[in-house]
């Protein structure tokens, strides 16, 4: 395949995408007088319309996305996002409402925010929500800030946050940035939190336990009630990373199981697009004892309608400009309303069913370190294939040749050579079978002709990249010469 040049490399002096018609009215030369005008921006590419269109169309064709490909990226919940959500969010009344508009002109927007908060509260069993954090990791940080504010108000500032080795990788950094020291809790042989270790570690120095449930192995922490009891008995709080809520939505309410603070990822469970299609949103839900510490402003409803309350003396303060990623929240609400309670339950049911179908179909082909039953994702390893010198990265790269986005690799760290697979509920049995067949074929190739796997991908736009050199000597911006 031919490498698509940079648009700067296509550029040639004098080319342009359009030509304005000749002026057919008298020219007013003074109209723009005194304004900082310039004829050109130095270094900007000069290209024709067809070159622009072809360049970006070709680039888009090299992209893997949920709209073109099965995308089993474990822990990321890469579900298909229904287009009706986009349609709703693109309505002019949402698109053109200004964040500085007075409250009385944006009552509908405030109602949307308040309704979403209430629905997330009902879904998770939490008493109050803030929709402001713009991503999961920001949600974690805000959640930890709320815990810190709550404990300090109680006159009981603590130093340590406990995090299991099967938690999401962002949890330790969120706790650390919030000023806590992180201590790790080891998993037991079932892949869940070891209660004895927790019991030992949970002292009066510990502010909170941050759990991911189901954890990154896809295993449900079935001792959640006992875990909550141990944490609460010593005055600590239970934080739940709700990024894996897709496994539980409609079937399990964290708030009923002793969780004090939770963050959700609207761009996972609630189907708003990820990454380039994003941005994200990481709402935080709390129990009523902690509600006074939520970020400002909070939305209040009275007989006069909806209003923003900035007068919350115990609040952790502002965490985001304006009101979070508003249009993302609109999409999430559209998703919840279009599915309804029964539809949401089905999301969790089918997500779990799909993951277990893959797990069962591949359990003798790829090694499963933890055989405990799993929910929405499963973590295989490259143990069998390593005997032939084939590693998880080779398997992941070979999948690209079969039109599948690679799964999450080498995480969680407790599974060496991990391949973490999360199909989500939006994949059909046909797509799952295609994936399973590809995985089986790769396992056969690993045994019979490992070189094919180790040099993959063979059919993609670029072949195996030198990730080590890219990381050691990164070139972060284009530094070519501008054509004069």
């Amino acid at each position, binding site marked *: 395949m031919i490498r698509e040049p940079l648009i700067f490399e296509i550029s040639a002096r004098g080319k342009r995408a359009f030509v304005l018609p000749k002026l057919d009215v008298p020219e007013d030369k003074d109209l723009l007088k005194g304004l900082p005008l310039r004829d050109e921006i130095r270094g900007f590419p000069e290209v024709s319309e067809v070159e622009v269109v072809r360049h970006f169309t070709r680039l888009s064709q090299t992209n893997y996305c949920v709209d073109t490909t099965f995308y089993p990226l474990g822990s990321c919940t890469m579900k298909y996002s229904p287009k009706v959500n986009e349609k709703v969010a693109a309505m002019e009344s949402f698109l053109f409402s200004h964040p500085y508009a007075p409250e009385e002109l944006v009552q509908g927007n405030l109602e949307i925010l308040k309704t979403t908060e209430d629905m997330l509260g009902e879904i998770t069993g939490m008493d109050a929500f803030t929709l402001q954090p713009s991503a999961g990791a920001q949600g974690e940080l805000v959640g930890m800030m709320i815990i810190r504010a709550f404990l300090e108000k109680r006159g009981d500032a603590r130093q340590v946050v406990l995090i299991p080795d099967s938690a999401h990788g962002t949890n330790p950094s969120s706790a650390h940035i919030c000023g806590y020291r992180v201590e790790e809790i080891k998993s037991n042989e079932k892949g869940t939190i070891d209660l004895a270790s927790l019991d030992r570690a949970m002292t009066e120095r510990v502010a909170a336990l941050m759990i991911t449930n189901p954890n990154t192995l896809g295993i449900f922490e079935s001792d959640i009630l006992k875990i909550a009891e141990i944490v609460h008995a010593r005055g600590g709080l239970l934080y739940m990373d709700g990024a894996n809520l897709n496994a539980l939505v409609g079937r399990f309410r964290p708030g009923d199981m002793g969780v004090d603070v939770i963050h959700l990822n609207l761009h996972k469970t609630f189907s708003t697009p990820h990454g380039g299609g994003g941005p994200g949103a990481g709402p935080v839900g709390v129990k009523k004892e902690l509600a006074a510490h939520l970020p400002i402003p909070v939305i209040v409803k009275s007989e006069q309608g909806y209003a923003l309350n900035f007068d919350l003396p115990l609040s952790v303060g502002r965490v985001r400009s304006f009101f979070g990623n508003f249009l993302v929240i609109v999409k999430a609400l559209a998703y919840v309303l279009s599915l309804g309670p029964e539809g949401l339950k089905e999301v969790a049911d089918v997500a779990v069913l799909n993951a277990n179908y893959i797990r069962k179909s591949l359990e003798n082909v790829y090694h499963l*370190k933890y055989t405990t039953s799993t929910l929405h994702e499963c973590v295989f390893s490259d*143990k069998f294939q390593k005997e032939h010198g084939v590693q998880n990265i080779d398997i992941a790269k070979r999948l690209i040749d079969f039109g599948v986005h690679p799964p999450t*690799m*080498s995480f969680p*760290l407790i599974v*060496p050579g991990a391949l973490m697979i999360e199909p989500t509920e939006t994949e059909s049995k046909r797509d799952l079978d295609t994936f399973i067949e590809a995985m089986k074929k790769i396992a056969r190739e690993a045994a019979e002709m490992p070189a094919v796997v180790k040099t993959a991908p063979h059919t993609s736009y670029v072949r195996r990249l030198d990730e*080590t050199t890219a*990381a*050691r000597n990164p070139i972060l911006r284009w530094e070519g010469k501008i054509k004069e």
Partner: protein
Amino acid sequence: MYPTDFFYSKDHEWVKIEGDEAIIGITDFAQKQLGDVVYVELPPVGTELDVHQTIGVVESVKAVSDIYSPVAGRVIAVNENLNDSPEMLNSDPHGKGWIIRLKIKDKADTEKLMTATDYEKFLEGIEP
């Protein structure tokens, strides 16, 4: 393979005692597990470290991992060469890829660590 005059931790760090100083690095097993190392975060000289406190961070193409201090002491030198050549952790983990040098607080800390023979036995019990 593993130098017999070193001590080893379960987290795959090694310690070499020289007088009242200790040199610390990660083991050959650790570098193999990590894969190509691309970045090493080093502590400032003067940092006081407790046993099992985080020295710094090793980032490889696969993962980001903490390095823990197997003994307590004050950091008196760090291997600045790792800033430009993190690959030394892969090519010579027990030599040029050393990470920090400590003024050791209590030599008894090494009593809880493994000898080379013990460490090799310990590795046999670990799934690679």
